[in-house]
């Protein structure tokens, strides 16, 4: 075996092991400690399942359920918005495409907080959108778009969309447009071409974008924290709250472990669904 190619992965592997795997193992261990009594973050030398089993009550299950539902919604919205956009980008002439890509990636140059606070102002109860709706008499009371599910959803979709569009665009770009031409020549209407050629050939990209949305949405923190409601929060927000507000570090660690497990299970389910739908493995040769 030639060790040299492995050396190329060295810097990345060092980072991954040092900054992800080791801390993660530590988190897993912490999740089994008893809470701290007075000093420190936990009671050393103890083992308990209490932190994990606490999640099995109604509140805990509600939290997990909400997180999965939130991630799924994000995934669906992201795919539904980015797919037509990616197809539109493919149809653009290269001179226009440059501007379109720049426009789509531009929000990524602004700080996440700037974007989220901007959305909060724009869509808030006294924001310009609500004021316009009120002035035109479309609504009699301000639409409550912030401090709830809708706000959290909009915020996160806004953050994920550029990545999803670029990912899907690269995928649909791989599709030879001559395939769609030839389908039309064989008598297929535009809808039949989309249904029988474009959609099935985009399936791997759609699922990859869906996975991106799901992972991101389930781990969402800032959107739900800043634009969501305090009653309905994702696991990430609860993790932060348990650790920094209540000082229950082992409980917080247990929640983190559960979140990782939940994301893993959802990803596996999505991959299974793709393989079922398309009849071949996701990420395999097409």
């Amino acid at each position, binding site marked *: 075996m030639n060790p040299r190619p492995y050396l190329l992965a060295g810097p990345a592997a060092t980072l991954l092991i040092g900054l992800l795997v080791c801390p993660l193992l530590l988190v897993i261990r912490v999740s089994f400690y008893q809470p701290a009594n007075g000093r420190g973050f936990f009671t050393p030398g103890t083992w308990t399942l209490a932190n994990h089993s606490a999640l099995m009550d109604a509140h805990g299950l509600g939290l997990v359920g909400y997180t999965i539902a939130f991630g799924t919604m994000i995934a669906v919205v992201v795919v539904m918005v980015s797919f037509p956009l990616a197809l539109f980008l493919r149809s653009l002439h290269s001179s226009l495409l440059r501007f379109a890509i720049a426009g789509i990636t531009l929000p990524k140059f602004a700080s996440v907080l700037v974007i989220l606070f901007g959305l909060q102002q724009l869509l808030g109860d006294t924001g310009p959108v609500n004021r316009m709706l009120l002035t035109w008499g479309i609504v009699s009371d301000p639409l409550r778009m912030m401090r709830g599910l809708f706000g959290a959803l909009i915020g996160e979709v806004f953050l994920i969309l550029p990545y999803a569009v670029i990912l899907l665009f690269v995928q649909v770009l791989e599709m030879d447009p001559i395939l769609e031409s030839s389908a039309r020549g064989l008598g297929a209407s535009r809808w039949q071409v989309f249904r029988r050629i474009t959609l*099935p050939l985009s399936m791997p990209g759609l699922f990859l974008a869906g996975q991106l949305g799901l992972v991101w949405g389930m781990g969402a923190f800032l959107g739900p924290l800043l634009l969501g409601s305090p009653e309905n929060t994702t696991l990430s927000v609860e993790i932060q709250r348990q650790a920094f507000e209540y000082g229950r570090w082992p409980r917080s660690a247990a929640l983190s472990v559960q979140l990782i497990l939940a994301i893993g299970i959802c990803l596996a389910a999505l991959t299974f669904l793709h393989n079922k739908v398309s009849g071949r493995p996701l990420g395999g040769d097409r």
Partner: protein
Amino acid sequence: MPSSELVRLADLNFGYGGAPLLRDVSLDVPAGKFLTLLGPSGCGKTTLLKLIGGYLKPQSGSILLRGKDVTHTPPEERGIGMVFQNYALFPHLSARRNVSFSLDVRGVAKSERDDRVERMLDLVGLTKFERDRLPASLSGGQQQRVALARALVFRPDLLLLDEPLANLDRHLRDQLRNQLRRLQEETGVTAVMVTHDQEEAMAISDLVGVMNGGKLLQIGSPREMYHRPLTPFVAGFMGPANIFSADFPGASREKPLMIRPEQVVLGEEAHHYSRSVPAMILSASFLGPDMMVQVTTNAGLSLMVRVRSCDSIVHGRDIRPGQEIRVGIPSHALWQIPGSDGEGIST
């Protein structure tokens, strides 16, 4: 009397911004015939094919199909079969499902559909074993057969072929070429093929059209195109040609003369012809069945001569550079090219 033309193109012009890709192309394709459009890359032949198929729209001019104006009809309503250069098979569908696609979108009943698909696959010679495979696991030749079956299964009266044999190796190409012609005759479909290979064009076609610089220069039977080219470009594109001007009785000095290398006579036999001159061999290359010999006459005329390798002249004395030899030009083999290639057309 109804016209026998299946396709009639009138004054087609096409181009994006800059230089036009097609200029005033007019053309009739008689029903049931095999027409091949021949020309160098960039001459507009594929563009013309895509215009007929409806994949592109002309800037001006009209396209008549079965006597009906289809200039602005989308491809799905033209009912034309097309084989694309890279075949454009649907990568996610098996060979069988690729072929059945046109019947599926037309809602043909399952039993009839399956029957027609299997018979068409029999006709192109794809084995049962290969029919369930995805295109990626088929060889180039098999993919070509699937593409052909897919284009013919819905019984179009016109078949368009864009360099269908270009991606195959030579041996397979010759074999599929004959099969393609047989299939066209059996199904009675009118075919328009595009190629840059003049041998392929002559072997397969009833009619050959030579294009260059977006113009259709000449159209005719393979023999006509080879022996009676109207411009020097057509003469050169149909095969190796000696083109020169000389004073011959009954020939105009302004119009160039052409003789094909295989029509020039070399050696003692040249004495039989009134036009026989001494010359010297410049070079000779062995091509298997033939030898291509470059000679220059004492008057300074340079000629390519094709001699059969088994000819006694090759055996008797070695043909080698520097050797003196007699060259005869049979008058009946000389053709005076009537037209010029015109301005703006490169050769």
